[in-house]
């Protein structure tokens, strides 16, 4: 019989963060979809959803209800088990990655010091990369189990794409790890307290650029949305899915977007560090110092969220702007352009680290 204190401790250290995180992710996954529709609509001189709630604010709720009550069809010739398991794998891997993400420094709430993470893993970045790799299974399994050639092609495209782009992405991450001297996300943020990694010349911007492109490809977003290119493969790997399983794929896609964006903010844009204008050069001069003080007064978590939404907006912006790549062009970019650049970046970063220039 464990004593009361232990149980309470467990609830406070694990239970509450998990519940808070879950509700945060779910609310985001629902409302990012609305955000995407709204952003796209306004970029395309439309209004987007307007009927459900004020400016469509209840649209995600309506969609969720619809997803849940739609008939959940499993094709007769589909592999039932794999078919049902695929969206779950995709979802669980997306959820799991959030565990390692720190949303801010230790904060005092109600007289208690609270960590704004669920688990502060020493290998936080690697953990997220590993889960992203497993997420690919969800896609291939969905594609294969549907017993539909479009799904299969979508699954293949997706797997090939994710594996290929994981490599430059991983090299960009390793570059960051080298700069920070750690794989721990909190330490990576702390290492940027003086200078964000994106402005560490020359490797920072290059690694950021690599990560950004690979991130778009990893999340199957336009212009790399070949696995679900609707004009070619109908809906790609989830062509045969309906009802809540389709909804799961839909939601998990936004979760993956969030993770990629969060990682980008944490690794390159200083995580929860506030924006400061010329802190070293002109930081002390009155008008600028006032602005800097005001910027620093904004809670760190809000800074992180602001950066997160900036990236998500950026992804939507790209989607509204660019046409889609062809499959072979996609592979060419990954293997012939991004990979050599990422290797070079890593080499330069290692050299700079060793020479003490960083």
């Amino acid at each position, binding site marked *: 019989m464990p004593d009361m204190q232990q149980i309470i401790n467990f609830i406070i250290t694990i239970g509450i963060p998990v519940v808070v995180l879950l509700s945060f992710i779910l609310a985001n996954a629902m409302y990012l979809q609305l955000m995407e529709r709204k952003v796209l609509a306004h970029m395309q001189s439309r209004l987007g959803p307007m009927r459900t709630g004020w400016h469509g604010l209840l649209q995600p709720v309506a969609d969720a209800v619809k997803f849940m009550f739609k008939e959940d069809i499993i094709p007769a010739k589909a592999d039932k088990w794999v078919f049902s398991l695929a969206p779950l794998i995709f979802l669980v891997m997306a959820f799991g990655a959030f565990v390692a993400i720190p949303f801010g420094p230790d904060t005092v709430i109600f007289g208690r010091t609270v960590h704004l993470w669920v688990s502060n893993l020493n*290998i936080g970045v690697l953990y997220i990369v*590993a889960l992203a790799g497993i997420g690919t299974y969800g896609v*291939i*399994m969905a594609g294969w189990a549907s017993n539909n050639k479009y799904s299969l092609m979508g699954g293949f495209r997706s797997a090939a794409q994710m594996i290929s782009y994981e490599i430059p992405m991983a090299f960009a991450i390793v570059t960051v790890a080298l700069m920070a001297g750690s*794989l721990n996300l909190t330490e990576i943020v702390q290492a940027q307290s003086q200078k964000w990694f994106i402005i560490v010349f020359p490797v920072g911007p290059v690694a950021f650029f690599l990560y950004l492109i690979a991130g778009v490809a990893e999340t199957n977003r336009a212009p790399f949305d070949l696995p679900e290119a609707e004009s070619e493969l109908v809906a790609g790997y989830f062509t045969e899915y309906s009802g809540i399983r389709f909804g799961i794929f839909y939601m998990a896609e936004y979760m993956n977007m969030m993770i990629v964006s969060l990682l980008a903010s944490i690794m390159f844009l200083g995580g929860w560090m506030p924006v400061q204008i010329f802190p070293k050069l002109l930081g002390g001069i009155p008008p600028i110092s006032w602005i800097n003080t005001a910027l620093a007064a904004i809670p760190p978590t809000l800074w992180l969220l602001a950066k997160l939404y900036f990236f998500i907006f950026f992804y939507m912006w790209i989607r509204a702007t660019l046409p889609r790549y062809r499959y072979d062009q996609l592979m060419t970019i990954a293997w012939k352009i991004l990979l050599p650049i990422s290797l070079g970046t890593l080499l330069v970063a290692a050299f700079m680290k060793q020479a003490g220039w960083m």
Partner: protein
Amino acid sequence: MINQLIFAYFAAVIVVSAVLVITRKNPVHSVMFMLLLFFHIAGVFVLLNAEFLAAVQLIVYAGAILILFLFVVILLSVERESQAARANRFWPWLAGFGLIIAGEIALLVLRGSFPGEGKMAVQVAGAGVRDLGVVLYSKFLVPFEISSVILLVGLIGAVMLAKKKTNE
């Protein structure tokens, strides 16, 4: 206590899924069970405080190698593979080999310790990324380089095979 329970769970799932990998008739299902297997092996690494190894286990084995397995397996005709014979006339020999290996493992376990470097590897793995890197690039530098050369050979061989086929 809790650790042992968790280990028991991991161990049990590992054994069961390993058996299922070779008994499933559908090759895709086999791969699925293998994924389960890798996950639980990663879990065992975590129990040993070897977080880095766990992550690498997932990234390399599950995230890269097994995906390629799955690629190949999906390309096979599942129906035909499912109907193919499960064993051929060599099966008693192969079973014999299996038994011998199992016996060796049992012997090692009964002796209660692994000889030499194995033990150290476990210690190092638990120590963290930095130490692992140091050991890999100092003490195990030669084996590390040799293994990368072997990988390179494999890579070139694969490219050669693929090239030959397209020329035909």
